[in-house]
């Protein structure tokens, strides 16, 4: 099991591989492997999507996936 935090200035639903899988700025448990991250609408964020291989994380040092406000 891997740990990810998707950061964004607001609380927003995180879509991982096209499915609602958690919220921004909160710890998310994910399966090891390659995942595509997006945020729920409105599309006021960039980049449009982030593809990242998630592995070797811990609960103390999760992978950070960063989105910014457009």
């Amino acid at each position, binding site marked *: 099991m891997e740990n990810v935090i998707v950061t964004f200035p607001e609380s927003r639903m995180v879509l991982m*591989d096209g499915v609602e*899988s958690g919220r921004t700025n909160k710890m998310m448990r994910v*399966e090891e492997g390659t995942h595509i991250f997006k945020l729920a609408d409105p599309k006021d964020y960039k980049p449009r999507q982030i593809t990242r291989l998630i592995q070797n994380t811990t*609960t*103390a040092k*999760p992978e950070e996936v960063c989105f910014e406000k457009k």
Partner: protein
Amino acid sequence: MKRNKQVIWVVILLLFAGCVHYPVNPKLSHFDAKAGYRFDNLSTNAVNSDKVFIILTFSGGGTRAAALSYGVLEQLSKTVVHIDGSPRRLIDEVDVISSVSGGSFTAAYYALYGDRIFNEFEGRFLKKDIQGDLKKRLFYPTNWIRLLSPTFSRIDMAAEYYDCNIFDHHTFGDLIKKGRRPFVTINATDMSLGARFEFSQDQFDWLYSDLSGVSVARAVAASSAFPGLFCPITFRNYSHESDYREPGWVKPALHDSANSLVRYRKALDVRSYSDSTGRPYVHLLDGGLSDNIGLRGTLRALESTDGGWSLIRMMNMNKVQKIVVVTVNAQTEASVSWDKHESPPWLMSVLSVVAISPMENYSFDSMLMLKQDIDRLNQEAKTRKDYEEIIRKYCPAVKLPGGDQQEVKFYRINVSFEGIENEADRMYFKNIRTSFSLPSETVDRLCNVGKKLLCESAEFKRLLHDLH
């Protein structure tokens, strides 16, 4: 002249046989990733909340397995707990039932009829000579002709029988209309992939087929089509129309051959269905071949966010507080005597070991994986808490990233004959043959031992304690 007449009759019979066909699963009229028999479409309600998330898994083992799981359901219906201050029957909190073979009869009946199971199921299935009825059908002359057809076999005949006599022609469309949990996943085995095949719209999307038009009986027949006794059951795999959308995880997972093998293999399995020219048909066998305790789907839900339902996803959303997994395993251990003799065992004995041992080993591995998955999640939560405590003590101004996490408690309840203390009783149950025809007294004993084993489980007692 007489010979000509005979030839004409043979031709008529063959033509008639040629017309007999298994009921074909319908093609999707259009693709809709949100429609159909999916976990998300069976909503929670005032009675069933996500806070206490209960998963039941029913193993294979013919009527023995069906009766044991029925006993567990009956006990859950009599158990009242308190959730948010309100009394609730534990059975109403069941969210998912994953079943295989014999256990699929109980699971499907409960999904269709709810509490009616407690008045009807004994008479309609458990105490009925299903095996005898199926054999009798082989002696109907019309069935001799039908079985000549290359597209109609004994498993299709069995499915017809279940459809008329047990499941009243209900389809998965009827289960969607009920719109309530539990979400029942009936598991079979894809013969080409050797992989678990579950009867959910998520899986049928890959065949571009509409599960709502498939009879529940046909799914149960597929789940219990033990090789040798029955032929595989066939489903059409339609070519994908332009509106088809592959699950979002498949494409990235195909990059994971080096680091996430299970996910990579699952993605390859999904892609295999998209080749409808090379694979216009899918042949399904007994679910026990890929998972005889119906636990693999739950394990995926604990490890991954990829499937139609995911415990990890629900934990990420802070939806669940307690996760309860009840495995009802009717695995036997028949007494053998071949080690008493110098001469090697007969071929039949060898073949039975070849057929059964890998399934039992796989079931053992599944139970072990469940324990490891839960231990790992508990350990990770504890580690996080320990870090938070240390930081609070030494650097109170600092906070760990990711915010507070809701604590999730796990309960792993195993109902199996291994739990019977009295050796004579244990051996009695472990030697009950796999059959769809058991004496009434044996069925009663199985139902009672299912209830007793559940009540005596230390984990079940812990759950009841925490819910009072």
